[in-house]
């Protein structure tokens, strides 16, 4: 058994080494970590228990087929930090095609700018709205053109068009929200933060949000690794 310990430690070390740790800045702090998406615990359990007998189960766990949500390959996970001093300014690029909008989800703050390229053959009139009265008219973009818009509203919004109901994205907008879009298993970091307490939100549109609070000390980095799955968002 003991002969496996060095191998295990090497594995842990190499996994940790692959996460870029932010540089220490005197008087400031940082939070960093990885964000991973995972299947429902019951399907993982079943896949492991079946020994490969189910069509999605391999001897080591799930084998994702084309019909399944491939949690290992999800691209639109968001690690967010609520920073009251942040007033926006970040630019996010989107492309509209007849297939829809890419990326399909956005996490941002009022004051951030979305730049939309219309790659369809017709004009598209964009708006942002929630299920209630929150609404922002963004305007028309001609085919082949790109336009930029500053976000003014917040909430759980939809970025949609008048012309095509399939061209839409899910938008999570909150004042002071600094966001990093990562693929499942990848690293994020928020650096040069003033010392204090911050709320963090980890989000994937189909899995919901996990809320955490982090205490930033001067000259220190805090590691927060999170996993989004049906089980972790429900707890």
């Amino acid at each position, binding site marked *: 058994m003991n002969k496996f310990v060095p191998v295990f430690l090497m594995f842990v070390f190499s996994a940790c080494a692959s996460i870029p740790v932010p540089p220490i800045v005197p008087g400031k702090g940082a939070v960093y970590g990885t964000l991973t998406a995972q*299947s429902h615990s019951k399907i993982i359990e079943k896949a492991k228990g079946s020994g490969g007998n189910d*069509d999605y189960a391999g001897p080591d766990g799930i084998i994702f087929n084309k019909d399944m*949500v491939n949690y290992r390959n999800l691209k639109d996970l968001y690690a967010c930090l609520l920073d009251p001093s942040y007033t926006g300014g970040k630019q996010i690029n989107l492309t509209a095609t007849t297939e829809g909008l890419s990326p399909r989800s956005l996490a941002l703050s009022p004051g951030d700018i979305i730049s939309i390229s219309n790659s369809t053959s017709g004009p598209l009139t964009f708006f942002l709205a929630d299920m209630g009265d929150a609404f922002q008219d963004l305007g028309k973009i001609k085919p082949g053109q790109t336009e930029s818009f500053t976000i003014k509203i917040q909430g759980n919004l939809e970025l*949609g068009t008048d012309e095509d*109901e399939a061209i839409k994205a899910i938008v999570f907008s909150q004042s002071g929200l600094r966001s990093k879009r990562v693929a499942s298993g990848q690293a994020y970091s928020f650096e040069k933060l003033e010392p204090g307490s911050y709320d963090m939100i980890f989000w994937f549109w189909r899995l919901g949000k996990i809320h955490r609070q982090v205490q930033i000390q001067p000259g220190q980095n805090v590691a927060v690794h999170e996993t989004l*799955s*049906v089980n972790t968002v*429900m707890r």
Partner: protein
Amino acid sequence: MKLSTYYATFFLTLVFICAAKPALSNQTVSGVVSIQGNKSLSNIIVYLENKNGSNSTSTNTAHEVVQRRLRFRPGLNIVVQGDLVKFLNAENREIDHNVYSLSGVKTFDLGLAERGSQLEMTFDKPGVLNYYCSVHKLMEGRMVVLPTRHYVKLGEPGAFEITGVPSGDWTLKAIIFHRRYKTKPLDITVSNKSITNLNLSIIKK
């Protein structure tokens, strides 16, 4: 039995019938749904909400959502608060399905269902929620939970008719899924006569 007892019984029966009459009223509320700019929208759910909050849901119904060929069928479900929904795994091969929702209307995770089994959930709060299978990417469904059974679903804007409406004060509303638009609700009072020629406007936000 004495004659006075017969009279008393007759009188009480008469009182009971008269008292019950308003609850038995069966009026119709009808009109037209119009959309600003004549936009063509599909799946418009027109419904009545009782202004006094006494939305009758006394006879709860069970609904079925079938999971077949990796889809929820139907994808859009309309139920009334208090109704039970059964999710049946009717795949033709061994595929497991899960049903979950993270909506503020109802948050739930029903676990895993093998082929031939079913999961159940009662929806007790009105609202619109999306639900998913955590395993299969195209399995998304939408549940509209209404406060009353007095509703009609329209495929497109146009004429509507809601039958069997009891007397009372009601608000006529509509649920639409295009977020550019919202409904302008109408307050109506139903008494002994049907109400016709209403114009329920759906306007741009």
